[in-house]
C-alpha cells in the first residue's frame, strides 16, 4: 500500500516535470534567449572549476 502511494507520487512528479519542460519549450523566443543567458552565467563558474575554459566559452554580453 505504501509502495503504491509512492509510485503515484512519482508519476505525479514526472508529469509535473514534463509539463515544466513543455512550458519552457513553448516560451516566447526572447524569453528562451534570456534563459540561455542566465544558464551561461550560472554554469561558467562551475565549468571553470572542472577544467580550463576554451577561449570562446564565456557568457554573451548582450541583451536578449
Amino acid at each position: 500500500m505504501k509502495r503504491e502511494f509512492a509510485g503515484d507520487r512519482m508519476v505525479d512528479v514526472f508529469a509535473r516535470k514534463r509539463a515544466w519542460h513543455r512550458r519552457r519549450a513553448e516560451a516566447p523566443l526572447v524569453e528562451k534567449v534570456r534563459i540561455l543567458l542566465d544558464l551561461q552565467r550560472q554554469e561558467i563558474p562551475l565549468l571553470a572549476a572542472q577544467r580550463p575554459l576554451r577561449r570562446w566559452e564565456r557568457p554573451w554580453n548582450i541583451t536578449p
Partner: protein
Amino acid sequence: MASLADVFRVLARMREEGVVIDYAIGGATAVLFYAEPTRTYDVDVFALLPADESSSLAPLVPVYQWARAHGFTVDAGHILVHGVPVQVLPAYSALVVEAIQTARVHYYEDVSVRVVGPEHLAALALQAGGARRRERAWLLLQTARIDRDQLRALVRRHDIDVEIPDEA
C-alpha cells in the same frame, strides 16, 4: 548593448553581400527556436560558400577577411560578432547541404534569420553522435514539433543507423 537580433543582422548581411551563398543556424542556438533552451557558448552557422572558396584549402579565409573588415575579431575559429562567438562551418555533408537549402525563415524581433528545421536538426545531432548531441536529438523529440515520418525518411536517406520511436 547589442542584442541577439544584431548578431542575426550580421549573418543576413554576409548573405546579402555574397560572402556566403546561403546559411542556416544549427546546433543549440537553432534548438532555441523549437524546444527548450540548452546551454551553448557559440552560434553554429552552416554555410554554402561560393564555388571558388568551397574547393579551396582554406575556405573560410574570405569570410574571416570580411568579418575583420567589418570590425569583428576572429579568434580560435570563431568570429566575435558583438561579443558572441559565431562559428561558420562550410557544408561538409549532403545532410548539411540539405539542411541549409531547406532552412526555415524565422523572425527574431524584426530580423529574419535562417534556421535549420527541427527534423534536420535532430538528424544532424544523430549523425554527429556523442552523448551531448544524442541528448539534443532526444530533447527535440520530446519537446519540439517534429514530423517523425520526415525524420525517419531523412535518417534512412543519409544512412544514419537509428530507430526513431513513435513517442519520446
